[in-house]
């Protein structure tokens, strides 16, 4: 069977909502916005996502209501297709293949069945240039059509959709026309729906209203100036009576057309405005914000709904974390806040204000940022570090400790330690003891010290609760500590001082031992868990992954890999390493005690993965496939940066055919299984069997017969009995035996204590087979030799019996 499992990378959410301007439907009930590879349909009143229009295989770059039918919507994507959807039911109506990546697209009511797309110019060497192309959409009833009638309109346009707008039958474009100095560069453009008037926003915060522009040189303009920074979006209301503008000030401004001295403001929208749209009846305004938020505003006075996505600021300074209580993903979001994000529902739960200071909306200001955060194992305590680094002044640092309040169900500030260190804090870790009273926090800093903080009883007054105090300051030869880690039982603390790993006892603060593996500074450090707790793993800057045995205090093994991120699964002994190699990231999952990785996948995604987290599953998954067992207890989430403007978070989780069957609650007939498998095989897009360590077995040779069975028309098929034997044969292959034997041979060569581990493993896997359907029993990675032999014997027996039955 499919031994290597079906582990796929699934894009699970957190994609940008503010990538392109959203669209409000004619009845103002729905809001459509491009989100990653899908189009999301939100309700404007309840903020809930109603549908996700999935089908594109590339980034969706534009959403537009069809001018001729307001119940249908076009979407364009980088995969080179334009799709037409019925958004009320979420049905794909038509796919139009254009064949070039589409960066933005436009339609006008004047041009029936013609859309205008921006694609990259072919045969351009270096600097990417873009051109505007008119595409005539073919009229046919087919689901899949190919548009062939393309005509170039303009070349050298800006791929940013704000740079193109439709006027009354005239199409206007302003690409970055850098007139005299950089200050009056165009940033966006909008056309008046009735008059011949174009509004342009500029880098210096001015809005210019251009009139009379069609005469050759007689154009004239007037200037409106309120914004202090670049105007990022402009929009006329449908009747043309008002002009809306927004920018980094996060204030929505409504200018009266032709009475520009009168204007209305809607301030405090939270973050810089990136797009503004108005519903076709003019009753709802909708602003997209740079913190991945869409605000729906009723008639420029009241914010009626907020649709909030995962906030990704300039950089994710804190790592990805799981809140042990809510199982929510925690990372820094809005400036000065920690966000709690539910992965299951792809929704922001809440923001925790860490800095508790007013954020000033101005670019270039240095403001407090949350740079580090850590939870203890029970989720009772949260430690955060905020810093502000001004060029002239010295670093301002605050370490804050938050206690979880059961009554309010939120974190309450317990202790603020200002200037806990003299320099930036490089790592922070709670001691994770078995009893829930964790009272030790270790922080390491670039000033060459690491400090241990402990919850101490109040000294003098009664009304104050316990607060955190510094317990110990440690240093090692003046070296800079880069990372720290507690062992699973909390009895050991490992601090990496550049090339040297020091192991301390937190109980006595005694330096137990030093481990050293020159060259290269240690950049990531973690202890093994459960059965592997005697191992300490570290990655070094010189692309080495090292594993020390703490019992012998010696290097157990090391391998040369460019590990960007080393993770430990809190619920098992598994570890995951993300390696960056030649433009893409590889994932390896391994146990420190075993030389072979449990799972490896080349090119999980392109680009670097710097943030990842193991999230415990709500219920343990029953899976028996060897390579996917590591995902039974937890899921692995990682954050990628696919494109500059599109950071999408993806999850990597098990996707077995069995799971699919059960989920779909369809009667589990063998034929269904077959069909499901067949589909799986088709979905197998890239199957890299040339991984570093693990040799993969080839696909089972069943596909030919199944294909024959499925693709031949029913009336020419031979009799069912003939097919049945073929079908059953296809289910039972002998190729797997050879592989299994090989695996066992390898296992035998391993040491004794590893056999103990595999016994444990076997225990867990043995409880499963009852649920497994008869057809997929060829898994069990850790079966003992004897069992395997027996199984093979049974299988052979089965086969002959079944064949005999069929032949008769």
């Amino acid at each position: 069977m499919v031994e290597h499992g079906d582990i796929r990378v699934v894009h699970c959410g957190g994609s940008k909502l503010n990538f392109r301007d959203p669209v409000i439907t004619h009845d103002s009930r729905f809001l459509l916005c491009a989100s990653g590879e899908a189009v999301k349909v939100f309700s404007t009143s309840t903020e809930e996502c109603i549908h996700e229009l999935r089908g594109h295989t590339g980034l969706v770059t534009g959403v537009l209501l069809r001018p001729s039918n307001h119940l249908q919507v076009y979407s364009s994507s980088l995969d080179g297709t334009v799709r037409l959807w019925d958004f009320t039911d979420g049905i794909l109506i038509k796919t139009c293949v254009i064949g070039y990546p589409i960066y933005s697209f436009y339609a006008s009511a004047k041009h029936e069945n013609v859309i205008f797309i921006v694609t990259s110019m072919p045969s351009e060497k270096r600097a990417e240039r873009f051109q505007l192309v008119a595409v005539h959409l073919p009229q046919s009833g087919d689901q899949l059509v190919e548009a062939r009638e393309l005509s170039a309109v303009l070349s050298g346009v800006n791929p940013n959709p704000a740079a193109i707008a439709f006027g009354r039958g005239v199409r206007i474009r302003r690409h970055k026309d850098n007139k005299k100095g950089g200050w009056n560069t165009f940033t966006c453009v909008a056309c008046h729906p009735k008059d011949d008037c174009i509004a342009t926003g500029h880098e210096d915060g001015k809005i210019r209203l251009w009139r009379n522009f069609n005469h050759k040189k007689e154009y004239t303009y007037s200037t409106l100036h309120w914004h202090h920074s670049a105007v990022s979006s402009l929009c006329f209301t449908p009747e043309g009576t008002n002009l809306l503008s927004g920018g980094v000030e996060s204030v929505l401004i409504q200018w009266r057309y032709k009475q520009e001295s009168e204007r209305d403001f809607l301030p405090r929208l939270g973050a810089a405005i990136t797009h503004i749209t108005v519903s076709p009846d003019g009753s709802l305004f909708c602003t997209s914000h740079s913190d991945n938020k869409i605000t729906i505003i009723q008639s420029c006075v009241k914010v009626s709904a907020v649709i909030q996505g995962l906030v990704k600021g300039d950089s994710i300074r804190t790592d990805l974390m799981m809140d042990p209580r809510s199982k929510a993903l925690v990372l820094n979001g809005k400036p000065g806040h920690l966000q709690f994000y539910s992965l299951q529902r792809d929704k922001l739960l809440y923001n925790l204000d860490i800095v508790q200071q007013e954020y000033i909306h101005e670019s270039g200001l240095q403001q407090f940022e949350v740079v580090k955060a850590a939870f203890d194992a029970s989720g009772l305590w949260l430690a955060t570090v905020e810093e502000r680094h001004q060029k002239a002044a010295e670093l301002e640092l605050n370490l804050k400790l938050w206690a979880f309040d059961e009554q309010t169900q939120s974190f309450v500030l317990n202790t603020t330690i200002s200037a806990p260190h003299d320099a930036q804090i490089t790592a922070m870790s709670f001691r994770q003891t078995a009893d829930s009273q964790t009272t030790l926090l270790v922080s390491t800093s670039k000033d060459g010290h690491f400090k241990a903080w402990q919850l101490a009883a109040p000294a003098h007054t009664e009304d104050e609760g316990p607060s955190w105090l510094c317990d110990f300051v440690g240093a090692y030869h003046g070296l800079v500590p880069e990372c720290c880690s507690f062992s699973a039982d909390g009895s050991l603390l490992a601090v990496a001082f550049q090339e040297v790993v020091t192991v301390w006892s937190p109980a006595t603060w005694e330096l137990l031992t030093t481990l050293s593996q020159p060259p290269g500074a240690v950049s990531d450090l973690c202890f093994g868990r459960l059965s592997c707790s005697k191992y300490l793993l570290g990655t070094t800057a010189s692309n080495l992954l090292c594993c020390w045995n703490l019992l012998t205090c010696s290097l157990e093994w090391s391998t040369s890999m460019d590990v960007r991120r080393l993770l430990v699964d809190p619920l098992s002994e598994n570890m995951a390493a993300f390696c960056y190699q030649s433009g893409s990231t590889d994932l390896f999952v391994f146990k420190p005690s075993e030389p072979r990785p449990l799972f490896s996948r080349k090119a999980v995604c392109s680009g670097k993965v710097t943030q990842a987290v193991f999230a415990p599953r709500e219920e343990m998954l029953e899976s028996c496939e060897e390579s996917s067992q590591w995902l039974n207890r937890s899921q692995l989430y990682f954050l990628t940066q696919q494109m500059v403007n599109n950071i999408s978070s993806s999850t990597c989780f098990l996707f077995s055919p069995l799971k699919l069957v059960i989920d779909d609650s369809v009667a589990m007939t063998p034929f269904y299984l077959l069909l499901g498998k067949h589909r799986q095989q088709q979905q197998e897009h890239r199957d890299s069997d040339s991984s570093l360590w693990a040799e993969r077995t080839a696909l089972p040779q069943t596909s030919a017969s199944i294909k024959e069975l499925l693709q031949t028309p029913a009336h020419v098929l031979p009799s069912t009995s003939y097919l049945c034997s073929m079908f059953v044969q296809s289910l039972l292959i002998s190729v797997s035996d050879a592989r299994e034997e090989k695996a066992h041979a390898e296992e035998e060569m391993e040491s004794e204590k590893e056999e103990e581990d595999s016994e444990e493993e076997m225990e867990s896997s043995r409880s499963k087979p009852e649920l497994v359907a008869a057809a997929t029993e060829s898994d069990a990675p850790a079966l003992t030799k004897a069992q395997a032999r027996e199984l093979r014997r049974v299988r052979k027996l089965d086969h002959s019996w079944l064949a005999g039955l069929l032949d008769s």
Partner: protein
Amino acid sequence: MGEFKVHRVRFFDYMPSAIRTMAFNSQTERLAVARADGAVEIFNFNDNFFQEKVIPGQDGRAIEALCWVGHRLFSAGLNGEITEYDLENLRPQYTVDAYGGPIWTISSNSQGTQLAVGCEDGTVKIFAILEERIQFQRNLNRHKGRIISLCWHPSSAQIAAGMTDMITIYDAETGQATRRLLVDRAMGASKNKEVVVWSVGYLSDHTIISGDSAGKVQIWNGLTGTLVRTYLVTKWDVLSLIINASQDESSVIAGTSEGTVIQFQFISSTLDQHDKEWVRTRTFRNHSHDVSALAHTDTAVVSGGMDTQLVVRPLLDKVEKNTQESALRKIAFPHRSLVGCAKKAGLLLFQFPDRLELWKLGESEGHGEQHTHTHTLGEDHICCSALSACGGWLAYSTVSSVRLYRIQYNKTISINKVPKLPKELRSVHQLCFSSDSSKLFASSCQSSVIVVAVSQQECRYLHTLKHKTGEWKARMHLLCASDDGKWLATANTDCEIHIYNLHKMKLHCMVPVYNSCPTTIAIHPVTNNLISVHADQQIFEFSLVQKEYTQWSRRLQTQGLLSLWLERDTPITHITFNPKNPDHIILHDTYMFCIIDQSLPFPELNAVLWNQMTLKNLPVSQRIGQSHAFKICKIFQHLMCVSLLEDLSLVVVERPLLDIMSQLPAPVRQKKFAT
């Protein structure tokens, strides 16, 4: 280039006077600008905005309004008089008292037959413009309150008059007020303050546009007397408003006391329709103080005000992009030299409108300059002055008289007026001493040069130099005598340059006429070549002996001047020569001084001009390759004079614009961003 000891002089606290009003004559392309001290300046817009003529002011003459009628220029002021100017001799020709108290405004009808003035007593007086003079015709019906602004309808049948709180439309024939348009007062606290209609415009379609002290620009229908639109453009006053009447009346500009100029245009909202309307369009922000004077040329907006600068802002839709024409121009300093320098004695003469200052350059490094004053006595302002090279004589002239002083310098400076001057020296435009200080040349009216011998004993009239033809010619604005005392060069505003032989006391020759006015001329002390620099920045060298352009000049003309040189927007106002190196010509404008080395090749037309500091760092071989005739120095800013003394020390007289700005009164209100 050589090194010089530099006297850096910053004590010439010249202060230009605020611009009060201006008028543009679109036929002759001349702009007349009246300043607060009563001086009137004429700029030629055809000739690189060169300041052709300056009519000196007078104490107590405050010009409120200017008006061109054909080639004639009229002004009216708060002294209640209407003045016509003699633009050839640069003096008021006659004044007529209007007998209506202070006059606020003056306007002529489109035919140029009648002149309307608005008076303090509320009358609009009509004067008939006759051949040589103007004659009072009649009063229009009198109203209570002063008449602040006036505008004729292009058909000359109606006059719109702006008053306090209202605009009145008069029938010019009957003198009856046909309509009164009431102007709203400002909202809020200033509700009780009456609103002054500072400016009014009357279009041929009977639209009236007004700007008032409540900050509104209002558009009225003059036929029905109804308000069409109100634009609140400022919280303060709209001081001036002008229509581009010479064109299609589709643009109006308004100047505010915030220093902004706002343009309104008459355009249709959609292209294919004809229902045009007035739309506020561009805003120009080039002034720090009140914009009290505006002019609308075909291609540019000209504005001036309290901050004394004249700003020419081209309308980018009317001019070719990225050319010299499309550049913003600020004219801050007069286009003539106000500094006299006695090269032998080390004396500096600074000319102010109402006084002269004589300074002695100190011997020690840096400091120790003493100074003395001479005050004028009359109320007329000084139009020109001269200091002899030996430092012994000082002459100055007002509109009506010339004075000559003998300066004696022994420990203390004593200045004695020379009592008896020849009666020929009465009204002169330019004064110049010969290099040996024995003769004084004065350009007089009728385009003649009067030569006066000056000596210790007496002051004697010698000769009058005239052209052969003797016909009426334009006045001479430049005089220059050669070092050897043989030649005298004169230039007039008709762009002609004449050379006189002083030994023979007659015209030697005439330099071929170039179509741009010379801004300065000088005769080379060694070669006796005449160097002339013109308003379009061209440089010519003319050999006086051979009566032809020199080889150097021809080469320069065939190769052409650098675009960097041609795009400078201030004229060269002074030329001196280096006695040590006859190849060097030192000339300066406001922003730089330049040494032209005639022995070096000209730079390539589009070459980058390296500054001297970068050149110094280059290796010698490369430096020689880069060397060319133009050596430009911009260390000293806003130069009034650069002159080389006898002892080869350079005198640099600076007047930084920032110093002028800091001496201006505080602005009424400056628009600040986010207020």
